[in-house]
């Protein structure tokens, strides 16, 4: 039999005015297992806590029930109290007789009755409380950042600045990501490359950052503080040690390929760096197009290379590294427009996407920064911009708002007006959304000063008329039909999650929403964390956002990483799930409902009759489990239990309540 002590707190008059303390104490003394009951004006005071400590020693109490305020208030306080008296902190249970009794009831008799019932319930639970212990797990003090766009760059730099080692992983031959493709940035119109490239160089030169380009995540194992990641380093066919980045090979390579970086508006070679300011500025051979790899002839680059850096025999290599934390910053894809035939994209060269427009504006882009129509190389006078292409479209696109299009279209309108004097833009919109510092003003500038006309109406058809394009819509505000003849049409293409986001999510044991954006742990309060402890999110991979937000989130993720890595070890929450090996059938229903991927299969050996056999059971990873208990209900035989809220405890509470 347990030796339970009950301590009823007056909380001044907060409890004592409504609950008859003496009666409660007298009732508590009759409860099974209770050997001692007393009261105190303020149990949370030093005096009150001393009383509890002394009583524990004097009466050899092994469980403690405190009738006081909400456990959300003082659970930790009293856990420390009983711990100081030599008991396991989890031997203490609180009966909430203030917030859930004296403060909400007025009649003293019924309130006292309820208080007694609450104390009895806590006593019943406490009698089944078991000693729980946190475990200490050492932390690998090194972080991995997946994705070398602005989010990954910022996160890596910030983590490195706190003194921890960081590996920055990029699947392309160069870091830079989407931001490198942009011309100017809203709302200040500073040059994207001018603010990005210094950061790229910082990354390359930072002693704490290891840059791993042309590589992808192959496998992730382990848990917070102790991830083991296998990275596939794709064969670059260029020896990074020997290559000086002179670029001769790229000039001489006879195989021209459409450039991904230039959105197909220009060509690159089969041996290439994505763009001139690439970091590292060393090329890779695109084996899918290289003549040697496709036709087994050529080898021009090998002949030309002054340092003999070309190596056709390179193979994919695998790097296995341990990390304490991971930041996912994999960015986004632009929406495919194959379902939007009405916009004539791909049918008429003057219908382009917004990202292509960026390249047409850009000084290092295919037109050298002159805005020219792809069809005839002449500057356009009237340009239509179509918003929400693939966004806010439940039927055939994304139901969500891509968030950045309103602003970059305003930017395009301004840039167009600046680049081509006398030009005019027509912006077809559903709503204009400009929540952000200086954003509304920026938008105002577009139509007040830069000759942009905003037309509320979605475009239903774009078709050629001579060497021009006709855009058909309605102005919903005036009710008038719109039929404009323009020189170019720019489609504000929606933002998609990366097509392979689901695969990565699976590798990382994190979840995605219906649109494959990675899920944050809590939409408001934990926007940077994932449900998997130790894995954080930065940038558009979590949901559409612009550069300032991306950078802010990246820095936030970096702080989360740094605060995790700043510890020598992690103390685990002991109120987590536990598997009873004997009862577990190994059907893994628990695994299906675990939001943290904390449950895995384990093979055990056991005797069956005269033989030793193996079978599968569930195993809880104590570092990943957060103690929600969803698994305990999914488990039909009750083989998985939640420490601190066990089946036995809850059933005892129910029984005690219904007494």
């Amino acid at each position, binding site marked *: 039999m347990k030796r339970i002590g009950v301590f009823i707190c007056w909380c001044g008059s907060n409890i004592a005015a409504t609950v008859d303390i003496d009666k409660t104490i007298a009732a508590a003394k*009759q409860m*099974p297992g209770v050997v001692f009951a007393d009261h105190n004006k303020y149990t949370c005071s030093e005096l009150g806590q001393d009383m509890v400590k002394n009583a524990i020693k004097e009466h050899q109490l092994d469980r403690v029930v405190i009738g006081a305020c909400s456990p959300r208030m003082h659970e930790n306080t009293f856990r420390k109290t009983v711990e100081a008296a030599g008991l396991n902190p989890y031997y203490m249970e609180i009966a909430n007789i203030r917030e859930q009794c004296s403060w909400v009831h007025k009649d003293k008799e019924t309130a006292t009755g309820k208080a007694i019932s609450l104390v*009895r319930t806590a006593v*019943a639970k406490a009698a089944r409380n078991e000693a729980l212990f946190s475990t200490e797990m050492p932390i690998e003090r090194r972080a991995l950042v997946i994705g070398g766009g602005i989010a990954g760059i910022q996160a890596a730099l910030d983590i490195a600045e706190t003194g921890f080692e960081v590996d920055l992983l990029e699947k392309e031959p160069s870091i830079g990501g989407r931001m490198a493709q942009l011309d100017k940035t809203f709302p200040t119109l500073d040059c994207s490359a001018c603010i990005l490239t210094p950061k790229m160089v910082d990354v390359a030169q930072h002693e704490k950052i290891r840059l791993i380009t042309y590589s992808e995540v192959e496998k992730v194992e382990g848990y917070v503080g102790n991830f083991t990641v296998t990275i596939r380093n794709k064969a670059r066919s260029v020896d990074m040690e020997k290559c000086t980045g002179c670029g001769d090979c790229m000039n001489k390579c006879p195989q021209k390929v459409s450039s991904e970086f230039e959105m197909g508006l220009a060509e690159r070679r089969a041996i290439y760096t994505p763009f001139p300011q690439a970091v590292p500025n060393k090329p890779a051979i695109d084996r899918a197009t290289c003549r040697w790899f496709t036709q087994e002839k050529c080898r021009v680059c090998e002949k030309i290379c002054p340092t003999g850096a070309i190596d056709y025999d390179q193979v994919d290599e695998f790097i296995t590294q341990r990390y304490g934390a991971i930041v996912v910053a994999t960015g986004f894809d632009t929406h495919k427009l194959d379902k939007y035939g009405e916009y004539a994209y791909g049918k008429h060269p003057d219908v382009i996407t917004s990202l292509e427009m960026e390249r047409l504006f850009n000084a290092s882009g295919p037109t050298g920064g002159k805005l020219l129509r792809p069809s005839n190389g002449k500057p356009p006078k009237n340009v239509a911009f179509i918003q929400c292409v693939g966004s806010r479209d439940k039927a055939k696109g994304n139901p969500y708002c891509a968030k950045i299009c309103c602003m970059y279209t305003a930017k395009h309108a301004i840039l167009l007006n600046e680049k081509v004097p006398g030009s005019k833009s027509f912006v077809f919109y559903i709503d204009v959304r400009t929540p952000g510092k200086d954003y509304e003003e920026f938008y105002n500038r577009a139509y007040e000063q830069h000759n942009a006309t905003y037309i509320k109406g979605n475009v239903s058809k774009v078709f050629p008329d001579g060497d021009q394009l006709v855009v058909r819509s309605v102005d919903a505000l005036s009710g008038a039909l719109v039929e404009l003849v323009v020189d170019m049409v720019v489609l504000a293409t929606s933002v998609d999650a990366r097509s392979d986001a689901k695969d990565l999510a699976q590798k990382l044991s994190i979840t995605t929403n219906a649109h494959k954006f990675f899920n944050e742990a809590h939409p408001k309060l934990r926007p940077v964390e994932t449900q998997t402890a130790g894995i954080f999110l930065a940038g558009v991979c979590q949901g559409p956002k612009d550069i300032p937000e991306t950078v802010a989130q990246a820095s936030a993720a970096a702080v989360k990483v740094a605060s995790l890595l700043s510890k020598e070890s992690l103390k685990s929450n002991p109120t987590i799930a536990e598997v009873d090996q*004997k009862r577990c059938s190994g059907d893994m229903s628990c695994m299906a409902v675990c939001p943290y991927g904390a449950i895995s299969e384990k093979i055990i050996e056991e005797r069956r009759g005269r033989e030793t056999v193996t079978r599968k059971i569930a195993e809880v990873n104590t570092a990943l489990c957060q103690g929600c208990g969803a698994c305990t209900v999914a488990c039909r035989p009750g083989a998985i239990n939640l420490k601190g809220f066990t089946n036995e405890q809850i059933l005892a509470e129910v*029984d*005690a309540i219904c*007494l």
Partner: protein
Amino acid sequence: MKKIAKSQLSKMLSMLSAEAKLYVPVASDGVVNFAPWQEDVEVDLTTINVFVPPKKFFFPQTEAVLRYDISDELEIEDFACKAGDKTILFGVRPCDVSSFAMMDKVYLGDPVDIAYRQRRENTTVIAMGCKSPDETCFCTSFDLEPGKAPGADVLATDTGEEIVLSAQTTKGEELLTQLNGLIQEATSGDENKVKDAQEQAKEGYTTSVNVQGVMEKLDGMFEDFYWDRLHKRCIACGTCTFVCPTCHCFDMQEYSTGSRGERIRCWDSCMYSDFTLMGHGHNPRPTQKERVRQRFMHKLNYFPHQHGDYACVGCGRCVRKCPVNLDILEVIQEIGGAAGGM
């Protein structure tokens, strides 16, 4: 010997029910069980095996044994001495009547189970002789006479239009005395009819087993591989034990609410994994093999060794109800090796 016209039966039952709680076989949703008699129920006189055997009137599936309260001073309420309202069972079949004698050996032997005794003493059993057997009946294999029920207080025999009642104990005589005025004296013709019916009842058995020597053979079979094979089919439900008129194992359960509580006795089944599960987790009968063996050893070896009779009355309920057709007939046949006509 008395008799009553079938048309008058409900009058008789009505009279009996005034004196005691009267239970009769009644079909509900296609399942026949003993149920309290009421004016409007139709007594089922044809079904041989009621679903839950009438042992439940002496040995209920669930009964409170005692209740305690320690919130003030210790108070114990003992239910045993309160057990047993005056009860009459009408229409108990001879096999079930004979099962009472077996239960008596357990519960009236030393130490006497007080609650059981009270119920037994306060209950008057009116047996109903069988006319013809079900295909699963094999009571004759245990030398029971299906038209007779020696252990009953009154034996009722269906002679066609009438039911002949003969008292076999003082309790039975008293009961028939109460019915004076309603029931008539039987004639010698009726007596002959009864004898004929009893002779007739022995006919038509298609199922029988030879139980000779089965107990002795089982003496050396505890470790036999037979059980390894036999148990495989058993899915460990407790149907056989709960429909068996002679199974009498129980479990004690405590419903404690801290300072108050109740102790309950309820049927248990040796087919269940927790039947012999001990507090520290060890189970001396770890697999279904041991459990199946236990059931048949108990019925066909331990019980006869201890009490002289096989703990089976051949009612055939387990044969009919076992979902996997694993029953005592099969075991007796295979152990004894000498099956009767089939």
